[in-house]
């Protein structure tokens, strides 16, 4: 299950992969931002790239969406090479960048219209399509308001709505809920899950929030220092290191021990000379166990 960079086996079942990457690399000067990563995703999957700041998540998304040229490696959409068929691939892609990039001088409607024209959508049904999308995103009240007056959560919703307008098969979300308060975050989560369920859109999301990856993603790729260091279903990855953690508060810091059952952990707790706490394992522990560091410090 732990791969050392290049994803070893590609799932060759009847399902066609919507997106495949091999040996993807990006080097900035002497800094290796992405260090030979590979993966293959199928239609309707909900994927998470989980990793700490500077892991290379954004750089990976930028290469996959054509904003940054890879130093090396291959990207294919539906089996077609990305760089040989950019127009074909770009029509399939919807992208929500880490920083909101709405046009602040335009209204919500005008931002969507700009996107519709940009993607060559049919002029005749354009206005209805935009109206439907505003309803889908719960933004009808904001239709004719200038974006510069919007709150962070509303802007985020609009960026996602815009990325969905041309009905992409694959939606990239780079840190979709960063900087939002817990309640707004939850509403954005519901929105994204709705997109995945109702439209069967393949979703690829990056995050450094453990909870976000665990709750939303059916498959998580843990990235550190530009490499995929683990991947799989969140529950299976956690099971592999043990279901429960005993946190031991020692003078040098917190020590962690993993157990298969709560009972075993509690027995160990009783024997300990230090203050302890038993809790369920999270993906943070998976990361910690492999790298010796935490995702969020």
């Amino acid at each position, binding site marked *: 299950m732990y791969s050392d960079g290049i994803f070893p086996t590609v799932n060759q079942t009847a399902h066609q992969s919507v997106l495949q990457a091999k040996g993807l690399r990006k080097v900035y000067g002497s800094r290796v931002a992405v260090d030979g990563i590979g993966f293959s995703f199928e239609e309707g999957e909900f994927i998470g790239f989980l990793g700490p700041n500077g892991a290379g998540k954004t750089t990976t998304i930028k290469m996959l969406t054509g904003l940054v040229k890879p130093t090396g490696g291959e990207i294919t959409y539906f089996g077609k090479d990305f760089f040989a068929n950019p127009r074909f691939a*770009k029509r399939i892609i919807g992208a929500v960048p880490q920083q909101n990039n709405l046009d602040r001088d335009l209204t919500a409607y005008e931002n969507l219209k*700009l996107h519709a024209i*940009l993607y060559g959508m049919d002029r005749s049904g354009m206005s209805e399509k935009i109206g439907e999308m505003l309803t889908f995103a719960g933004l009808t009240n904001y239709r004719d308001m200038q974006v510069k007056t919007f709150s962070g959560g509303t802007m985020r919703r609009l960026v996602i709505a815009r990325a969905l307008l041309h009905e992409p098969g694959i939606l990239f979300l780079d840190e979709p809920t960063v900087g939002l308060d817990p309640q707004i975050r939850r509403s954005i989560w519901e929105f994204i899950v709705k997109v995945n369920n109702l439209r069967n859109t393949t979703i690829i999301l990056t995050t450094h929030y453990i909870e976000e990856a665990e709750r939303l993603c059916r498959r998580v790729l843990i990235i550190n220092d530009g490499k995929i260091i683990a991947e799989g279903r969140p529950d299976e990855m956690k099971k592999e290191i043990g279901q429960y953690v005993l946190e031991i508060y020692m003078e040098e810091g917190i020590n962690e021990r993993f157990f298969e059952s709560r009972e075993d952990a509690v027995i160990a707790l009783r024997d300990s000379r230090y203050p302890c706490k038993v809790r369920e394992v999270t993906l943070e522990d998976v990361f910690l166990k492999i790298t010796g560091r935490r995702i969020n410090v």
Partner: protein
Amino acid sequence: MFNGFTAVLYREFTVYRKRFFKQLLTASLSPLLFLIAFGWGLGREVSVGGMPYINFLIPGLVTMSSLNQSFAISAEINISRFYFHTFDEYLIAPASHLEIVLGEALFGVFRGMLSCLIIFLYVVVFKVKLSFNAMFLPAILLHTFQFSALAVTTSMVVKDHSSQALVNNFVITPMIFLCGTFFPLGKLPSAFNYLVSILPLTYSTKAIRASLTGGTVEYSHLSIMGLFCLVFFITSMLALRRVEA
């Protein structure tokens, strides 16, 4: 097929409509000040290049004003790239670089042309007699296109806002003062003549002035302007390609 081109123009014109009065006011002020200072201040008695100075000055103001307006798109593209990141929307979309560059450049041409109308309004108000030659149209088109394309190039090369200001201060402003906009070129020491002869504004000024003051517009000047258009268009395409490095 022209989706990217149409989208860029849709964006620019929608925003322009909202800022119309502010922009009109901005574009009107500096030529008016020049007219008051040098047109009225120096008076009609001063004669330059065989005509009243105000007649000499007005084509210069047309050139300066349209250059400023066309080149102004540079700062705005720069802001959209580095500050609001809206430019990324174009790069992610299924649109070619050609469409994006052409869309932005044509908007620059539009802005430059519009500023000429303001000056023609002043001409009426100040009761200046100009002779209008049809060659003005190709001259102003080439003039505004070359500086719009230069603006796109600059906005793609320059990495932040202060470097953008540097280009304005060290390239655009000196050009405006040296290339015969406000005085005939012959008066400068000969060393300057070499410098001036490689600057694109020199040929714009010559062609535009000739077309508005009853002179003959030299085809060689128009050809050189066309050449600059081509060069700056190519540099903007190359610069945009480098953005996705």
